[in-house]
């Protein structure tokens, strides 16, 4: 029985994301290591900048997204460390799974982890830096769009670096210049939300949406050759 390509892609994606979430449920690496790291970054920012609240509060949008980017690197490394260990990546390659489905599954897994991280970090900056947000809808939309873009780019660059001996040092330099637009757009959109000027922020969401769509598209097409070679 012929099956629609998109259907099998999504089914495979669901399978991969289910596997990753089960793995996280058993190992709790994100929960017990990456999440505390993200909170630690927030505390370190307070040490670096004057804890007298004014600077921190003003810089909250940028610091929030910086903390997200740093934790994201760990999350991506974790997401592919579980694949490269014990030759699992060979198993993925040889499995009958659609590579685009694997890409989407990995991206969705990274994205879900990132969303949890962002929610916790958001509570963190609200409590620790005393920044009160306005424009809740803008905040939520920015988070979702930025997460989609970061997850897509992360899933793509993660597989590029996976399996290399220097992956831990290579991933940041490959990835951070690429996601710089997400940092810019996320920060500007949050600034608008905190300043109660949501109108300014929405156009940055447009940039985030374009970034996400582009990287999802690149990933769907480029993942197959990358997976073969990693």
């Amino acid at each position, binding site marked *: 029985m012929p099956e629609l390509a998109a259907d099998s892609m999504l089914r495979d994606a669901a399978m991969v994301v289910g596997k990753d979430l089960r793995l996280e449920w058993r190992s709790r690496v994100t929960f017990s290591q990456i999440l505390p790291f993200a909170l630690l970054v927030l505390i370190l920012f307070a040490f670096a900048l004057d804890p007298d609240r004014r600077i921190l509060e003003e810089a909250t949008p940028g610091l929030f997204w910086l903390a997200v980017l740093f934790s994201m690197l760990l999350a991506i490394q974790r997401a592919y460390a579980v694949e490269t260990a014990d030759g699992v990546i060979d198993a993925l390659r040889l499995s009958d799974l659609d590579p685009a489905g694997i890409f989407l599954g990995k991206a969705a897994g990274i994205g879900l982890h990132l969303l949890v991280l962002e929610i916790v970090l958001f509570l963190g900056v609200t409590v620790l830096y005393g920044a009160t947000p306005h424009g809740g809808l803008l905040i939520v939309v920015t988070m979702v769009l930025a997460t989609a873009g970061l997850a897509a780019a992360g899933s793509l660059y993660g597989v590029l670096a996976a399996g*290399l001996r*220097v992956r831990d040092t*290579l991933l940041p330099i490959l990835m951070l*210049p690429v996601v710089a*637009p997400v940092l810019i757009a996320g920060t500007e959109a949050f600034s608008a939300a905190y300043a109660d000027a949501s109108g300014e922020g929405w156009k940055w969401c447009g940039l985030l949406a374009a970034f996400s769509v582009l990287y999802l598209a690149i990933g769907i097409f480029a993942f197959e050759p*990358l997976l073969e*070679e990693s």
Partner: protein
Amino acid sequence: MTSPSTDTGAGLLRRHPDGTASRGSRILGIVLLVSVAVFLYVALIASEPDKSLDAQGQLVRIMYIHVPSAIGCYTAFFVTAVASAMYLWKRTTGWDALAASSAEIGVIFVILTLMSGSIWGHTTWGTWWEWDPRLTSTALMFVLYVGYLALRRAILDPTSRAKQSAILGIIAFINVPIVHYSVDWWRSLHQTATVASLDPQIDGLRLFALMFGMVVAMMLYVWLMMHRFRLAFAEAALEAKGLDLALAERRAEARADGGAVPPSVHTEGAS
């Protein structure tokens, strides 16, 4: 085919027997040297300073380096992207070597663009770095391609390296406009009078110096590419030979384990 060592030219066209030069690259090199001399004469001596920049009119000469090197790096990265796409289509070593060579030369041009831009900025803004959108996005592009070269160094297997870096070469180039526009947008929000970029008045001999600078940059790019590409190609050949040698050694070892062949047949040539 004629033996390559017999024909290394004579006079000005004489080439080092082990070098990466060919007759064509040598001729281009001579033209390039003459052009550089003419360019330096026009850019530094013959052309007038820019009166619209007041006392600092001589500074317009920095532009004759800055703009051509910026054009050079964009060209180089464009060639990297095209060669990467061609590699994914044809899967031949040549396209991979072309992409790698072009990216490396592009990084050199990007460094020069950043340095001259920073020096120009210092004279205009009084600081070595201002968050000028063009300069900032160029800095990001620099890191992007340093990452590309880093990936190339990190992967040992030639085929796998070629394929992965071809994909990265294309993605990196797609990134250039995204980074450019987002940085542009970002700065236009905060743009204050102090960071206004000063566009000098360019006409007459100044225009000629700028245009000729671009021509020289293109010639320099092509000449560097000829040499760098041949170096990359030779490295690939050496790599393949090393692999063959290693394979031969393995086979010889296997045979030696069988006890039939003495293990001394494969040792020469491994320098």
